[in-house]
């Protein structure tokens, strides 16, 4: 199949769905499901002149900080556990338990303790994101081929260099898959923390418009949320391709 045809095929379904929604809802008088044209103009107005862009910025800022903290903490502790089977055996029950906690369950506790500012949101996001990254980092480090480590040791490679040049690259594909899962969780916790207790942010925008029955705004915020989630995951995928180019190249060669 030619490239052009494939691109056309890829775009066909989304376009058809959007067109169907646009015309299907054009005469809608339902309070809950306004015409897509109204949703679109609400989205546009609130982005250009209203609070939406600022809300989105605040949400993304919290997400970025929380996610970054989770990556650093998760990779560090995860790698530590991966390198020390003893330690990971001892901590295993606690890690297993902590990962089973539904991450949104402690949002009320954190927001209750720290109020409605940005700090509880960042903390909730970091807590939610850290476990997928930690677990995958542990797995990744543990699956570094023993031969690599033996080789590095027989060359008397210093520990730090060994970590940076042997362990980390070998564990990186697995760490990235943890980061992908964590990003999804992070966006969910971000929205939940804003709906639960906030006066700003994308989640708050969606909730407050729902409570005032401004359903065009509710839909607009929801659609924007979906677009943001999609773009973030595509961004992560692109950076993964870039960082792991050597990995995919070596896999394709075998």
């Amino acid at each position: 199949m030619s490239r052009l045809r494939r691109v056309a095929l890829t775009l066909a379904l989304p376009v058809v769905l959007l067109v169907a929604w646009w015309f299907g809802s054009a005469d809608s008088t339902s309070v809950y499901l306004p015409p897509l044209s109204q949703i679109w103009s609400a989205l546009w107005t609130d982005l250009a002149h209203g609070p939406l862009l600022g809300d989105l910025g605040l949400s993304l800022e919290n997400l970025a900080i929380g996610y970054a903290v989770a990556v650093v903490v998760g990779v560090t502790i995860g790698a530590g556990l991966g390198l020390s089977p003893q330690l990971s055996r001892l901590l295993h029950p606690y890690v297993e338990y902590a990962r089973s906690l539904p991450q949104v369950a402690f949002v009320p506790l954190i927001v209750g303790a720290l109020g409605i500012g940005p700090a509880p949101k960042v903390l909730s996001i970091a807590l939610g994101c850290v476990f997928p990254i930690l677990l995958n980092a542990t797995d990744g480090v543990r699956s570094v081929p023993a031969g690599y480590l033996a080789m590095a040791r027989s060359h008397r490679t210093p520990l730090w260099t060994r970590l940076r040049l042997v362990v980390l690259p070998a564990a990186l594909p697995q760490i990235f898959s943890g980061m992908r899962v964590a990003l999804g969780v992070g966006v969910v916790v971000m929205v939940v923390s804003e709906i639960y207790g906030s006066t700003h942010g994308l989640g708050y925008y969606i909730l407050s418009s729902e409570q005032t029955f401004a359903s065009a705004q509710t839909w607009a915020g929801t659609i924007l949320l979906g677009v943001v989630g999609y773009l973030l995951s595509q961004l992560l995928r692109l950076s993964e391709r870039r960082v792991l180019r050597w990995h995919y190249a070596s896999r394709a060669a075998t």
Partner: protein
Amino acid sequence: VTATQTPPAPTAGPRLARRPTGVPTRLRDAGGVLGIGVVLVGVWWLVAATGALSADLLPMPSAVADEVVRLIANGVFWASVGETARSAALGLLIGAVIGLVAGLAIGTSRLLADATSVVVDFGRSFPIIGLLPVMTLFLGATARMEITVIAIGAVWPVLVQTVDGCRAVAPAVGEMTRVFRIGWRQRWLFVVLPGTAPYAATAIRVAASLSLLLAVGVEVLGGVPGVGQQIAQAQQNGATALAFGYVLYAGVIGMTLSAILARIERRLLRWHTASRVAA
């Protein structure tokens, strides 16, 4: 050494030989795990006792332990656990079935895969909990709304992994079925489905923890009865210890759920694990 002595556990053998103390590894591990638990609770107790955080924010471990014990005899607790478990399970079931069927269709058709790629990518990265306000507009704060949200969320991991599973069938196997002119019914029964099953099983476990997450999230935010609602209510009433107790049990529900699914998976996929061990 006489024959009547119990032989050492095979895995612990060499290690025991190197450690003259002779304390079995498992026992030492249990001691270490317990020790870490004591340290964790100790730190918690210290922080709470010094009043660095007031009792409204971080209750004493003893107060939480009290609530944890008291909840066992509490009818409201069991009812809320039941509601949460039921919604999560039903949503998971509906979502997994849709995800499996759609995944098999997309995984076995290049055309369908291209046509749906954007929609699938969009759906899998959509933070489903964000649908809550819109869904509340349609269905109200009801268990039906909760199950719908969970089902929509559970579809994606199952769908994506099922597609991967279909594609992972070794090309040689696919060619062989064609060379031998094996009919589509046999191909599905003996090649496609068994090849996909391990992937789908993993995906269903991922979807299960997602289902519980969504269930609690919808209950916390949407006021739908269940464990999440109890957590939010307790916190808003200033009963922080009770809220902590509920959160601790939410983790237990999560662990139980994944343990049950892991057991089912091991049983259903015994042939797969066996073949992997042999390889």
